[in-house]
């Protein structure tokens, strides 16, 4: 299953890659593969912007505007004027989300 095409904010600078393989290890969508001791993007549209790769790339080769792909969270963010957030970890309301 794939989500909308050409929307991801994922950016990758192959020049900074040292070939450590961390991005391949952490990506839940198989966006990165190792080839010739460098990471390579297979399919950008598979990226779900979780941010695991960017957080774990020690060499700053990856950047992504990470966040939750959740309509309820984004609507809440729109209403409160802040970042998209579920707020479920802070409140005791019934039926909170993930």
């Amino acid at each position, binding site marked *: 299953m794939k989500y*909308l095409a050409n929307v991801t904010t994922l950016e990758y600078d192959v020049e900074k890659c040292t070939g450590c393989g961390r991005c391949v290890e952490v990506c839940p969508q198989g966006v990165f593969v190792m080839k010739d001791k460098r990471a390579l993007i297979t399919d950008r549209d598979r990226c779900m912007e979780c941010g695991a790769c960017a957080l774990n790339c020690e060499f700053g080769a990856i950047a992504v505007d990470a*966040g939750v792909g959740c309509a309820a969270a984004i609507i809440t963010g729109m209403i409160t004027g802040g970042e998209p957030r*579920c707020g479920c970890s802070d409140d005791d309301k019934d039926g909170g989300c993930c």
Partner: protein
Amino acid sequence: MTSGANRKSSSLDTSLILQDVIGEVSLPRVSGTEAAPSKIVGRVSADISQTERWEHFKCRMSGFRNKYLVQPGLYAFGEPDANANVLVSANYKLSFDALRQELEGLNFWMLVLDTKGINVWCAAGKGTFGTDELVRRIIEARLDSVVKHRRLVLPQLGAVGVSASEVRRRTGFRVSFGPVRASDIPTYLRAGYKKTPEMSTVRFTMLDRLVLTPMEINPSMKKYPWFAAGVLFLFGLQREGILFSSAWNGGLPFLLLGLVAIFAGALITPMLLPFIPFRSFAIKGLIAGLAAVFLASLTPVIANSHDNLMLRVVTFLLFPAASSYIALQFTGSTTYTGMSGVKRELKIGMPLYILAIFLSFLLLIIFKLNEWGVI
């Protein structure tokens, strides 16, 4: 740990089977360190009780899941020694119990982080399953005096919140991100901390999607009484006052269509997700909604109301739009939707939803004025 989380932990009936709860135990010291005794919460059994099975079911059905926690800290699974692996997890008991079941027969340490009872992936996204919390728990459990090695195995999805390099810098422990699913952990450990691409990728099978649907239906059903009250008021309102018989007879088709929209958006769309055309959830929900409303309109009770053109238009405008909106909410439960995509859907979708509601209102007002013989 915050006092809030403490309160929640203590209010929980801890049916977790601890063979012996150990407050402080002395373990074999590593190379004669002078550290204080390590703190271990308890030893954990793999047997899941009937009560726990019932609790797991309730987690899938209701807000019960919001307060299903285990106490954070270091646990012993089986009979681990100073060379045993250290696994890290969240303190959502549904996740914790999945590990108990999947890892039966293995001897290892389990460091449970305080994620306020939220699962690993979501907690990592919020930062509660994060670098700071992990470092704090490593120090608090005095992990360096419990094991000789310096390796932690984290669930892969925890990588969203944990920077492996920072953990190493601050504690000396090297982080290996293990497989996505607990069931692959034994294979991963046997293979020497190596995983296949298959173990690294999240799946989203029909069963995975189906178990999530009750918690999609619930929030919509909570709003349903308001919708129902509005419909009954609208159809009941006559020149003579509010008439029960016209509220019920006139409103029944819309009351049923409301349920059809919820069913299409919160159950059919998630279940048939890859089989409904287009990638957009709003469009998927719209298609499912149109199909469901069309089928429902073949039943006599709804077909009869279609003698009126205004009601027929509202039927095919408002309810598919509702299904579309409800389907869009499922983006929060999927394993593959990203923020930029959902933002784009909302940017295009929200004005259309508002327009659909506005037009429906307009048509219903015309319908009422017509009914009263004003126009």
